[in-house]
């Protein structure tokens, strides 16, 4: 079964450093997303991306965050200057279509655990 692949599985970084989280969505999917889950809290939407541009973003996704699809396969989330509160599990997801009912929801990756120290 096709998978969304995320690397690395765990990233430890010092506060103030830049990190790039990588994702390879499912090849025929057109919509890409980042979500995060702070330990013990709910999964929160960060950003959605379609046709090489951001289609929606939450208030969490401030100027410190950016997304990019640098080539035909990768989808990256960059955090410019990490803060302690950025420590969370970051999930990438992709879907075939914008219409959830047709796509049966997104396919999520296994996540990258980001620890900011």
């Amino acid at each position: 079964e096709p998978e969304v692949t995320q690397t690395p599985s765990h990233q430890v970084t010092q506060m103030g450093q830049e990190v790039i989280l990588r994702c390879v969505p499912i090849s025929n999917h057109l919509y890409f997303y980042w979500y995060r889950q702070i330990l013990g809290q709910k999964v929160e939407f960060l950003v959605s991306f379609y046709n090489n541009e951001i289609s929606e973003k939450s208030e969490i996704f401030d100027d410190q965050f950016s997304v990019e699809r640098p080539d035909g396969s990768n989808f990256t989330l960059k955090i410019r200057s990490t803060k302690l509160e950025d420590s969370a599990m970051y999930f990438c997801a992709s879907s075939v279509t914008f219409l959830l009912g047709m796509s049966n929801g997104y396919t999520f990756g296994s996540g990258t655990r980001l620890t900011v120290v």
Partner: protein
Amino acid sequence: DQQVKQNSPSLSVQEGRISILNCDYTNSMFDYFLWYKKYPAEGPTFLISISSIKDKNEDGRFTVFLNKSAKHLSLHIVPSQPGDSAVYFCAASVRSGANNLFFGTGTRLTVIP
């Protein structure tokens, strides 16, 4: 801003019995609801969904019920199996808008053999 709430952080059920997981929402604009299952060290996996035009959707052992007037949905698993032990997330979306999902905080289901 808890638009989707799962008030039970955990639930334990005997194997073979019914598991009922509950979810409440506050935003009346939500018109599509999903349940995801999550194992440790994995991403959420889609389980079942329901559109607001329905009040029930069934898929094998899993049934989701939607009560729009109460802004409440539930997931029934019957019979429960030990492999169902996981964290279950309820999620909601506005399909006519951006289809980002609003998640609840999850319920950890433990099915006891």
